[in-house]
């Protein structure tokens, strides 16, 4: 009796085949794109919808490796720095506050009574819907954009931490008390270290949303940034620049995801998801 190498419930895919199959969709997309782009350019050499590889490479050179004619900056790097700064501050603030609130709500019933309904309510507000309120109240500067990212991911991460702490058996707290811990000691020296990897995972999983809020707020009101640039050149149908930026953002996202996973794996080898 042999296992099938692809079909059915009992399949066991050989390594080489797995690698090959994994790469296949990407190759297919690229090939399909090249063919489609070629067809369109044969019809109309000024087509802007599906730029040729040469055009894309030229766009990459323009945004990444040459100074912008108007500002003298290297656009891709300037935009990345601006966007990543906003993302970093928003996510960091959300992480720290979600950790503190989720942890303390789960451990102290008194605090929980006060905050639980309120946090639940906040998590139901669609963040993009309050973006205009933020711009009206705080202006179109950095704060509103960072705050949107914060309010977008803070409630979810808080509830995630809350649930994770609740899962830790009460026996641990009791035992820590018998070993001499104070009440705060139980919370910050026994429970907190155990949920740090969970916090990192929760942040990693919410980065997708964080990027969404970042790009949306930059699209509406910003003067530099990855989202800003994409929506700016949209008006000139500059797909070559847009595709470059989209691939670049995807790459950054992939790297962040990988780095966070590796941090958890290395510093918390005992952690089981």
């Amino acid at each position, binding site marked *: 009796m042999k296992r099938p190498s692809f079909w059915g419930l009992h399949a066991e895919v050989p390594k080489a085949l797995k690698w090959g199959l994994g790469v296949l969709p990407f190759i297919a997309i690229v090939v399909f794109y090249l063919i489609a782009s070629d067809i369109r350019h044969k019809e109309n050499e000024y087509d802007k919808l599906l730029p040729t590889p040469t055009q894309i490479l030229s766009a990459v050179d323009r945004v990444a490796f040459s100074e912008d004619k108007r500002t003298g900056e290297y656009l891709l790097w300037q935009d990345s720095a601006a966007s990543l700064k906003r993302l970093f501050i928003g996510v960091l603030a959300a992480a720290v506050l979600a950790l503190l609130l989720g942890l303390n709500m789960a451990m102290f019933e008194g605090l929980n009574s006060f905050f639980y309904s309120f946090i639940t309510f906040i998590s139901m507000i669609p963040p993009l819907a309050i973006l205009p309120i933020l711009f009206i109240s705080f202006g179109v500067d950095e704060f509103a954009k960072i705050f949107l990212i914060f309010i977008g991911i803070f409630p979810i991460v808080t509830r995630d931490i809350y649930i994770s702490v609740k899962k830790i*058996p009460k*026996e641990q707290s009791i035992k820590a008390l018998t*070993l*001499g*811990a104070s009440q705060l000691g139980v919370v910050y020296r026994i429970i907190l270290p*155990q949920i740090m990897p969970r916090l990192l995972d929760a942040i990693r999983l919410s980065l997708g949303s964080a990027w969404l809020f970042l790009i949306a707020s930059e699209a509406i009101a910003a003067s530099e940034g990855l989202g800003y640039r994409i929506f700016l050149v949209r008006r000139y149908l500059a797909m070559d620049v847009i595709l470059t930026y989209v691939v670049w953002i995807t790459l950054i996202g992939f790297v962040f995801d990988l780095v966070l996973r590796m941090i958890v794996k290395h510093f918390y080898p*005992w*952690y089981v998801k």
Partner: protein
Amino acid sequence: MKNFLHIEDLYKQYGNKVILDNVDLSVKKGEICTLVGPSGCGKSTLLRLILGQEVQTRGEISIDGKEVGFASPDRGIVYQRYSLFPHLSVLENVMLGHTLEEGFFQRRKNRKVNEKEAMFYLDKVRLGEHAHKYPHELSGGMQQRVAIAQALLKKPKILLMDEPFGALDPDTREDMQLFLLELWEENPMTIFFVTHDLEEALFVGSRLLVLSQYYVDDRGKNAEHKGAKIVGDYLLDSKVKSTRFKKSKEFTELIDKVRSLGFNPENEQHARDFDLKHPDSYQTLEPYEDARQ
């Protein structure tokens, strides 16, 4: 003069359901008390009340003359599961008795001293060479031994154990029973040991307590809101025995007696006639439990 552990008129109720019903217990220092009873009778509840994990509905629990409060270092605990903290190494787990009470700089200063003492207790439980492993790398029996070392380092007034060997296979369980007895001989301490295994209770204990809800009193046989009481209390031979003792006649006779007394739902023994044979056993019955008063 009250004994070391003194429990009087203890009631524990959840809503309308009475779990512990006027429990009285007096324990001298240095006893290994084993507590048995049918499933769900409230053995673990009683242990948790002594520990301070739960609060009694009514009644007194005192250790050394002082009423017990919430969980604190004067009472050590070894649970059946969740014994160790998974994010710390074995050595760090055992050191917690000191490190949890010290600030950051104090911990750095005392690191060598704390490690040395923790290793002393780890060696006592014969796990010195596993000091730098993590709990998930140890077997169940090894984890329980570390948990015992962890609790002992704190030198608690009383060590509470809630079915500590219940999750282990029979051979390991027997090893651990012998191990605990040896430890107790070397370091006399008061132990309160809950188990559902009657043989284990008789083998390990110096005093056997039987908790059961199967009895009769003046509230009638089928009265509602009736909880468990201590229906049996026996003095046992406290010397370290060989496991052949488990096959002896007196052993099996006592097991049968306890089974018919505490584990038989049809049992009709009256509360005033409980088999309280230990010199320290006592009982205060309420009038509605015993019309004779």
